[in-house]
């Protein structure tokens, strides 16, 4: 009812005016009554007296009128909040601590939730994103791709999509003014932007007409970020020419700022049509007609009203059809159709698991924070128990008192959660801006959306209930008479009250997190030093991809020869070499090994090895120790017999304890033999945790591809060595793009990134939990001292020593602390293998950092007890006994 609402709103927000009106109205009534009585012959005094008698108490009536307004609850709540605010302002240290604790706890939760939310539920920022479907081929994980002929058939045969687009991510190099920059772009079918229903911010997007004639459409769309960063936001960008991979393109448009492509994890900067595939990646044109060569991602838009499950079953039908028509190339496709997410399929569920784990940990930390604050509030409540008892005795309703106590906790919770939200926004912003140091356009497009806001609100409500419940119950349950007499001892005393047990749990959680953090950090340290198979200390590297800079093989070989020649001539340089990839790079080449004399019964019995193309001097440059045989030398030329070095694991696998030198193997049953000329130490190749694998080093030159990494061993500082490589390369050809230029040690440390992130997160949470546990311990001990001031006074009066008092006050806490440390340590030793498996993909021995965590906890515990204990020791028996 609108009039009802306006009335109530006025009663709340114009309370002063409404109250004045009530005063006026009642005064008018009284005066009228007085006048009437005077007309019947009374004097003014008599009449006034009579009127007061008949009319009754004015204040009481006002209360009744206020009741009639129907806004009492709101007004009282407002009063309670103001009262709570006054109370908190009176103890600012407590209030600040409480808000800070909650902000940290809640902030951690909001961040964890938002990440999880983004991974699981976020939709692409385009029109009607719920209609979009990512079609993936799970046959050859980890690349869920399709061949171009298969894509064409899916596109033409399905009845469920209004459009089905295909695309592929490629590294590209963009040259302007003689300098080239490496970036990542998508090669897309002409209907890509139509499928997304995405328009341009400037100019136009790509259209089907751009994808008709092979090699004839040198047009590109760039992202808003690319336009801003690389073209300085040039307003005349549309129509400009830019060289991509040595070919000239016309920039026809810029995408909207919020558009980041069709994948959550990548932010490409350029889109070019599929007809330019050959120009972007020389040799790739042949892929388009090769049905057995999957390389494309597929994204479809459902026709209105078509369910995703129907689309999936129809696509599976087409896949089965294709499998019958082309069994060798398209047989046995495992297809799935999902809403586009941050990750797809199995990665998505693994991500969700990890996210859930982090959310769980964050939840635990918040729980710790809330229970501690409840403890502190309880201690405050103990001090107020007399006031509350007095008010109960004077007739205040228990409900009203409860509301008042909850107002305080609610105020704290809401403020804390709001601060937590602000903190989380900063963190998320920082996280979204963070680029992991890998050569990929990886972006964490995280954000706090409406769900995040609701989550925070729910968190605030839950926290305020959790905070307020215990103190409120304790305060209201307290016997009035007892409290007024000054006996504030809790009426029902359990031997181990819940709150004490929670302290133990907090200690255990802190130990678990801290020990875990130390464990992970220790494992990383160990993994980076033991059995690495390289000695990275004095080596720096830089990667290049010459075909992106318009080189063919012959020019590439010439460039590399001159680069090495010039680098070796520089003062301070001990050696220089080029390898196709360095062990522990993100990409690797795998080949089959047919060893001479060894027979494999089935195709699947053939062993596989990692292949590296390396120049002479490679092993010395990266510090891989030779064990037997020789390094490559001038006699090993293109055209001479193929030679290779193998690692010790390879040697053992095929020759056992005999020498492998001079033995031969090949990579296909019909290809030429490769002779083993040297054996080098085994090391880590795929990940820091994975054990030794077979590795083959062939001579770069006998086999060649235009991408590689140049390594320089020198006595220069890493920064100098890196800039030396850059200068030397630029002197030969300034158009060549170098990337991942850094010290080898830094490059290898990248492998440890997930572990580092985990260790940082764990130690962050661990320190937070430690801090919170210390507050909790402080709360318990301080509370105990407040409750037992008189008892302590009496004990001291009859001769208790300081030692007795300390034991009395901290005895329980010490037991809890010890129990918590043991429980946490036990949990850590149980969970450690699991944690290591998640992070490193395998168990790795690491130094157990339990002792350090336990010591930190003990120190925090002592610090927390310090002040309450000093207060207990400072109790003057005479004062304590009299004060009650």
């Amino acid at each position: 009812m609108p009039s009802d609402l306006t009335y109530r709103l006025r009663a709340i927000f114009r309370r002063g005016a409404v109250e004045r009106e009530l005063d006026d109205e009642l005064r008018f009534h009284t005066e009228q009554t007085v006048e009437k009585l005077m007309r019947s012959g009374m004097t003014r005094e008599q009449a006034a007296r009579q009127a007061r008698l008949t009319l009754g108490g004015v204040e009481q009536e006002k209360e009744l009128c206020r009741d009639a307004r129907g806004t009492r609850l709101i007004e009282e709540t407002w009063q309670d909040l103001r009262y709570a605010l006054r109370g908190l302002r009176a103890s600012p240290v407590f209030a600040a601590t409480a808000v800070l604790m909650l902000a940290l706890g809640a902030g951690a939760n909001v961040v964890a939730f938002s990440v999880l939310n983004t991974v699981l539920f976020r939709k692409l920022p385009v029109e009607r994103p719920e209609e979009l479907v990512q079609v993936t081929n799970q046959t050859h994980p980890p690349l869920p791709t399709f061949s171009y002929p298969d894509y064409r058939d899916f596109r033409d045969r399905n009845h469920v999509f209004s459009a089905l687009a295909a695309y592929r991510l490629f590294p590209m190099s963009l040259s302007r003014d003689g300098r080239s920059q490496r970036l990542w772009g998508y090669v897309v079918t002409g209907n890509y932007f139509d499928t997304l229903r995405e328009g341009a911010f400037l100019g136009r997007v790509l259209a089907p007409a751009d994808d008709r004639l092979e090699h004839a459409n040198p047009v590109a769309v760039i992202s808003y970020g690319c336009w801003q960063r690389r073209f300085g936001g040039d307003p005349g960008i549309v129509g400009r020419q830019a060289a991509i991979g040595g070919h000239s393109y016309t920039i026809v448009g810029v995408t909207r700022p919020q558009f980041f492509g069709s994948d959550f994890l990548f932010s490409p900067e350029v889109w070019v049509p599929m007809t330019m595939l050959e120009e972007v990646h020389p040799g790739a044109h042949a892929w388009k007609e090769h049905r057995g060569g999957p390389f494309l991602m597929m994204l479809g838009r459902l026709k209105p009203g078509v369910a995703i499950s129907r689309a999936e079953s129809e696509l599976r039908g087409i896949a089965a059809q294709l499998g019958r028509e082309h069994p060798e190339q398209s047989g046995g496709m495992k297809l799935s159709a999902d809403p586009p997410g941050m990750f797809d399929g199995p990665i998505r569920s693994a991500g969700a698991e990890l996210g859930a784990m982090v959310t769980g940990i964050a939840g635990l930390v918040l729980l710790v924070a809330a229970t501690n604050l409840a403890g502190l509030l309880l201690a405050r409540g103990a001090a107020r128990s007399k006031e509350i008892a007095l008010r109960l005795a004077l007739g205040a309703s228990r409900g009203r008192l409860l509301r008042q106590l909850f107002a305080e906790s609610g105020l704290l919770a809401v403020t804390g959660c709001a601060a937590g939200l602000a903190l989380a926004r900063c963190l998320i912003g920082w996280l979204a801006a963070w680029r992991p140091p890998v050569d990929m356009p990886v972006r964490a497009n995280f954000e706090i959306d409406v769900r995040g806001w609701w989550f925070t609100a729910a968190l605030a409500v839950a926290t305020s209930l959790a905070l307020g419940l215990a103190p409120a119950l304790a305060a209201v349950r307290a016997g009035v008479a007892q409290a007024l007499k000054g006996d504030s001892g809790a009426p029902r005393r359990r031997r181990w009250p819940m709150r004490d047990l929670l302290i133990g749990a907090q200690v255990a959680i802190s130990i678990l997190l801290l020990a875990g953090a130390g464990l992970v950090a220790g494992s990383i340290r160990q993994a980076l030093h033991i059995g690495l198979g390289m000695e990275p200390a004095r080596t720096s590297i830089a990667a290049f991809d010459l075909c992106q800079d318009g080189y063919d093989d012959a020019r590439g070989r010439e460039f590399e020869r001159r680069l090495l020649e010039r680098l070796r001539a520089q003062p301070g340089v001990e050696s220089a070499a080029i390898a196709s990839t360095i062990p522990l790079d993100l990409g690797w080449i795998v080949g089959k090994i047919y060893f001479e004399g060894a027979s494999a019964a089935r195709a699947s019995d053939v062993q596989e090895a990692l292949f590296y193309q390396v120049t002479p001097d490679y092993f010395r440059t990266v510090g891989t120790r030779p064990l037997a045989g020789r390094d490559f030398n001038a006699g090993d030329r293109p055209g001479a017999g193929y030679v290779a070095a193998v690692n010790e694991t390879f040697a053992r696998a095929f020759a056992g304890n005999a020498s492998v030198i001079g033995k031969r193997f090949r990579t296909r049953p019909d290809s030429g033999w490769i002779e083993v000329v040297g054996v080098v130490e085994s090391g880590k190749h795929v990940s820091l945790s994975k054990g030794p694998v077979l590795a083959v080093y062939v001579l770069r030159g006998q086999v060649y591809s235009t991408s590689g990494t140049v390594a320089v061993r020198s006595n220069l500082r890493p920064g100098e060595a890196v800039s030396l490589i850059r200068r030397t390369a630029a002197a030969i050809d300034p158009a060549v793009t170098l990337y991942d230029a850094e010290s080898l040690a830094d490059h290898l440390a990248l492998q440890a990134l997930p572990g580092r992130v985990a260790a940082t997160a764990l130690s962050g949470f661990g320190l937070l939990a430690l801090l919170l546990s210390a507050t909790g311990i402080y709360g318990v001990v301080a509370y105990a001292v407040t409750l037992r001031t008189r008892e302590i006074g009496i004990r001291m009066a009859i001769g208790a020593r300081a030692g007795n008092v300390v034991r009395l006050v901290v005895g329980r806490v010490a037991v809890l602390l010890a129990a918590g440390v043991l429980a946490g340590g036990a949990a850590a030793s149980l969970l450690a293998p699991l944690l290591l498996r998640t992070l490193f993909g395998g168990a790795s021995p690491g130094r157990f950092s339990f002792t350090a965590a336990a010591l930190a906890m003990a120190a925090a515990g002592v610090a927390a007890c310090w002040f309450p204990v000093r207060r207990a020791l400072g109790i003057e028996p005479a004062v304590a006994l009299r004060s009650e």
Partner: protein
Amino acid sequence: MGERLELPQGTLDLLILKTLALGPLHGWAVSERLEQISHDAFQVGQGSLYPALHRLERRGWIAATWGVSENNRKARYYELTRAGRKQLGAEAVAWRKLSAAVGHVLDLA
């Protein structure tokens, strides 16, 4: 003064609405009018009159404006709204039915 009657729950609202049906009145006038019409059978104190007026106002059945009284004082005048008039009709019918029924039962007993 005759015998004082306790007003049954809810009846006061009906009587106030009826009193205001003739025209706008301030609170004191409402109580005077009620006493006159009922031949002093009802005495309505401030304690129940003003909460009732405010309640009716909140429900939107009466509206309040500040005006000037007969003796030139500022007074708060209440007047029946359209919703209030409808409510009065409905409540009057309900009351008549109720009292007739109660009377019938009493006659029979």
